[in-house]
């Protein structure tokens, strides 16, 4: 055996582990239950199993990349550190006031996210810097010392500092940092100018507060994990997945845990981008449908779209605006309350609805026979023949068709429908929900996705992809091998990445290019340092510039890629063209001659695309053991006897005409009557609908 890369994704329910062999791309996978109180425990147990099963030793493992829901859960469950905040005098309430917006227009009982720092721990310091960075009032150091006393007395473990306009001049925050270091040596500190040097005080303050809130527990957890891995004999440096789809060193992650919040979903999007690109499709829609939600993300030209802001810990998971805004780059995705466990119900007008409530893993859908009686999407899939009751999770769990039918009957009868038709209705409605959400989401970005490829994964993704694609007018679906652990594969293909930002608000025409060049120079040097520190060779480093720009007077910026090299007035027309091109793509038109403003400047440092071993599933359990059979499957309006293939029996270049099902341990892929399945060289299932055209 050769050398291996190791990735693991600690999810809410399962911890997925993958080993990929260098050179051959051989893929070894493991899945264990997550141990929420001590996440490293499940990792160590899982890795022990994998090593033993395959006769490997830790010395064979080189790279190690990891994603975790630890930080997300800590915010949701309010398990972060006792945190203090120091703000400019007069603005301690910024954190609580927020943006004064109700996220649900019709809810008279609206609940807003609670500020993570209570009033008693929000201290103010006299100081003032203006928007140009000029000091108007010097920092009152006595105020900082007073705050430190308050914090000490209250047992504060982490302190966030957020002064007005600190992005323009971090001097007062740095000085405050030094005073705190001396006054409270045991507390961790986060400065807004370091975590998110970005304009807009509420979002910046929330971001730095969340960072402080997460610091102690993240540091503890990572320390412990590294220690246990080292003791077990893993020598390589561990890396951690960022929300942006890059990876960072453990040290960096411990300093800026705010960047890890979306690490799991980011890995999924990266995996979809990777599978699509490898198969020759660079524009894809990542479609990950699991037990409670479906996640959809747009990948253009092989890259998952990254947004500069997202929300954490929403009060209502599917309501935009009900969470904490976080101003750090994250893979741009939407989450829909549509999964195998989504519950079907009848509304006040007698219409069939599905979700967003989910039966979760316990009691789960009725067919799990664990006491759940409400009809779920999985129950419908079973009744309609899409799932095989004896081969769920590779046969590890037996599903009860009788329970599923009884549950579906509970909605069929009041609706006056036959059980099969009601079950079909559940599928139809949940598929419609996902397709419409994706349609509105892509319309907001001005995209025509009819030529895109839907990359489907997650336990329920491949079983629903055909219908969702048809509803979206998308003609091609790709289902990668190992659907259930696709996200973990994303970890191994992630480039190392660092994102930096600096606010400097100026009209483009009147920009001080000396200052702009200095800002870019500084950020580029920082990015290079961080990447080479992470082991990236200088010639592997790619630096990308961008800026958030807008027409003067608009309250809304767009991210514009900018050219390399020294910038000067002679290049104004060129810079304007970059803005125009982006604006036109997004909004379809431009305002010739209107003044342009720049708010934030950004540099992303990335490890250039590398040749990555293509994961190949070898020695997977059950290979060749499932002969091709058939069963009745309900397609649109009737049951049709449909051939069922074992995924492990398929060979590359096999072609199968629909209708057909392909079964594997973690999922079942549905190929509709007007679709054709082809197995490519990487063992992906490529499904073309309607003879390759769009439906």
């Amino acid at each position, binding site marked *: 055996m050769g050398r291996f890369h190791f990735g693991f994704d600690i999810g809410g329910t399962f911890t997925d582990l993958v080993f990929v062999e260098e050179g051959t791309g051989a893929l070894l996978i493991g899945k264990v239950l997550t141990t929420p109180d001590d996440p490293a425990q499940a990792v160590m147990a899982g890795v022990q199993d994998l090593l033993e099963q395959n006769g490997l030793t830790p010395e064979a493992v080189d790279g190690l990349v990891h994603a975790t829901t630890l930080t997300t859960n800590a915010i949701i469950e309010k398990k972060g550190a006792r945190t203090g905040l120091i703000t400019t005098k007069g603005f301690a309430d910024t954190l609580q006031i927020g943006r004064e917006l109700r996220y649900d227009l019709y809810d008279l009982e609206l609940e807003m996210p609670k500020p993570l720092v209570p009033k008693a721990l929000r201290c103010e310091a006299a100081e003032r810097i203006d928007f140009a960075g000029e000091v108007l009032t010097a920092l009152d150091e006595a105020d900082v010392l007073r705050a430190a006393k308050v914090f000490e007395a209250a047992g504060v473990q982490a302190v966030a500092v957020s002064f007005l*306009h600190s992005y323009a001049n971090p001097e007062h925050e740095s000085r405050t940092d030094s005073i705190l270091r001396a006054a409270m040596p045991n507390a961790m500190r986060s400065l807004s100018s370091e975590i998110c040097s970005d304009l807009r005080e509420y979002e910046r303050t929330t971001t730095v507060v969340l960072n402080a809130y997460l610091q102690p527990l993240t540091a503890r957890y990572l320390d412990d994990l590294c220690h246990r891995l080292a003791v077990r004999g893993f020598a390589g440096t561990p890396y951690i997945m960022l929300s942006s789809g890059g990876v960072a060193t453990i040290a960096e992650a411990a300093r800026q845990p705010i960047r890890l919040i979306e690490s799991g979903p980011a890995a999924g999007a990266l995996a979809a981008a990777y599978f699509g690109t490898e198969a020759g499709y660079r524009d894809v829609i990542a479609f990950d449908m699991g037990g409670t939600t479906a996640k959809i993300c747009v990948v253009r030209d092989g890259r998952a779209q990254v947004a500069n802001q997202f929300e954490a810990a929403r009060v209502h998971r599917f309501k935009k605006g009900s969470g904490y805004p976080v101003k750090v780059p994250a893979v741009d995705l939407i989450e829909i309350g549509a999964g195998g466990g989504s519950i079907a119900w009848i509304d006040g*007008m*007698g219409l069939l609805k599905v979700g967003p409530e989910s039966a979760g893993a316990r009691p789960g859908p009725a067919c799990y026979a664990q006491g759940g009686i409400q009809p779920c999407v999985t129950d419908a899939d079973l009744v309609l023949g899409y799932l095989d009751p004896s081969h769920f999770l590779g046969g590890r769990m037996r599903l009860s068709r009788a329970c599923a039918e009884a549950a579906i009957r509970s909605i069929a009868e009041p609706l006056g429908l036959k059980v099969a038709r009601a079950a079909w209705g559940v599928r139809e409605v949940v598929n419609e929900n996902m397709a419409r959400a994706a349609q509105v989401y892509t319309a907001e970005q001005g995209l025509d996705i009819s030529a895109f490829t839907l990359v489907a994964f997650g336990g329920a993704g491949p079983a629903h992809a055909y219908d969702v694609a048809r509803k979206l007018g998308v003609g091609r679906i790709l289902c990668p091998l190992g659907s259930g652990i696709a996200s973990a594969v994303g970890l191994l293909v992630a480039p190392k990445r660092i994102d930096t930002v600096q606010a400097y608000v100026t009209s483009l025409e009147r920009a001080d290019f000396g200052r702009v060049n200095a800002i870019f120079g500084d950020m580029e040097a920082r990015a290079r340092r961080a990447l080479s520190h992470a082991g990236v060779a200088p010639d592997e480093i790619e630096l990308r510039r961008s800026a958030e720009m807008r027409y003067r007077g608009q309250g809304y910026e767009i991210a514009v890629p900018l050219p390399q090299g020294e910038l000067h007035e002679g290049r104004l027309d060129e810079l304007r063209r970059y803005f125009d091109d982006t604006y036109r793509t*997004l909004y379809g038109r431009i305002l010739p001659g209107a003044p342009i403003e720049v708010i934030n400047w950004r540099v992303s440092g990335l490890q250039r695309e590398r040749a990555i071993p293509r994961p190949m599933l070898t020695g997977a359990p059950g290979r060749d053991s499932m002969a091709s059979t058939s069963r009745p499957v309900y397609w649109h309006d009737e049951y049709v006897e449909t051939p069922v293939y074992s995924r492990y029996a398929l060979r590359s270049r096999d072609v199968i005409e629909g209708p057909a099902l392909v079964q594997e341990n973690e999922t079942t892929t549905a190929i509709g009557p007007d679709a054709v399945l082809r197995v490519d060289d990487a063992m992906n299932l490529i499904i073309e609908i309607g003879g390759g055209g769009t439906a």
Partner: protein
Amino acid sequence: MRLDPIALEVLWKRLIALTDEAAGTLVRSSFCTIVRESNDYACVLMDARGRSVAQSTVSVPSFLGTLPITCKHFLRRFPPDSLQDGDVLLTNDPWLATGHLPDMTMITPIFYRGKLVAFTGCTAHSPDIGGRIRSGDAREVFEEGLRLPPHKFVAAGRLNALIVDVIRANVRVPDQVLGDLMAQVGTNEMAGRRLVALLDEYPGLEFAELAQIIQDKSEQAIRAAIRALPDGVYSDEFDVDGFDHPLTIRCAISVADDALTVDFSGSSTQVPQSINAVLNYTYAYTVYPIKCVLDPRVPNNEGCFNPIKVWAPEGTFLNPRAGAGVGGRALTGHYLHAAVFGALAKAVPERVQADSGAPLWFISPTGVNRRGERFAGTIFWNGGMGASASRDGLSATAYPGNVSNTPIEMIEHEFPLRFHEKALVVDTGGAGRHRGGHGQRIVWEVVNHEPITVSFLVERINHPARGRLDGRPGAPGAVLVNGRPLHNPKRIVVLQPGDVVTLQTPGGGGFGKPAERPSAEIEADLTAGELSAEAARQEYGVVVTAPNRE
């Protein structure tokens, strides 16, 4: 045509998604900041008779039910046989559309196989409409900008060149205004294409029948919700600040079986300033709180509004005659929730809120900065929300308006203002079993080299938000310049360099008797800094003895 609950759910969702997709297109291509940041738009699909079938999910309440009203006005002027494919109708007439000039309402007839089957429509706030700066004291609508009567902005695919020239000559940013109008044309077109594709996909589907089913189902749901209210006449009456003298809002809600009528008879006469609310706007801000109480989940369409009638006598400030100033309508319309909740509290107290510290506050500073550039714009802040039977009101977030604040760091970049404070003001939310949300204090200084002009659109300086069911009122708002209250803050004022302005937005009303607030919640408020020791004693009779409190 028979539709089972699955087909109906899928088709209905399609129609709503079609309007949401249109909304996405509109927001994306609009230059207007408040369209993008404050959802000041709506996209609606209507049947061939101009009755709404689906409305975009996200929108400010101002446009509830207004597009179908405008569409029916259009139909009277342009009957179906005078319409053809490629026509686009436009107006911003406050009395026919949404109640003030900046909202452009555009409606496009949609033809399928040569037959008029539907209208797609959208309303969006324009970046500018000419006239004077936004303030409360325009005496007539003629001061407020350009009025466009109903016309074919596009006739059979040809843009009306004369109207384009007229608009171009009357607004400050013509490219943006016309650009946004073209975006509206494109939005309606896109929604129309989606509808045609849907009809192609479902041969045999009669859109008129589908529309009728959707409207009927919705109407039945709302009627059932009204029927669940006890029959009777519930009334409320209160005074508001007005411009230079208080005005009265009188409201009687009659619930008779499954129909509900709101009558504002007895409300004050219209005023010669711009705070009059046109009936369409009065309607929107009246049905909005009613729908929140009845059944907010029924998707918006004509059926929801059929059982609800709203009336105010012509000549009152809730139904002013043509020609009245209306640009500051929000200062009146945002009060109407209080009348609705006040009246319905007598029938279903557990489902309403106390008065909010609304209307929304905003200021419009204008002038020339140090670099010689002209600045102008609008900055928004909120008061506290009224409490309800089940929870405290939100602080600095009010009902019914829903406009986000502008970040201080952004304001200081754009205006020669420097902020000294923006903080919640403890005890400004009214006491009660549930406490009203607090207002906020905002202190800023003029740091220009020369004087600037500011228009304050503020309310509840003299008439605080009322509590409900023995809840205490919230604190009133205040506007001070250099520590002294402004005599009439709604008049445009000139501020000198160095002037310091203090704004305190009103708190929300409390709900229920303060004596019934559990001591644990009073304790928690004290700890969280939401209540002072003094107010704990005065309002709740709780004496704080804890030694560690300052």
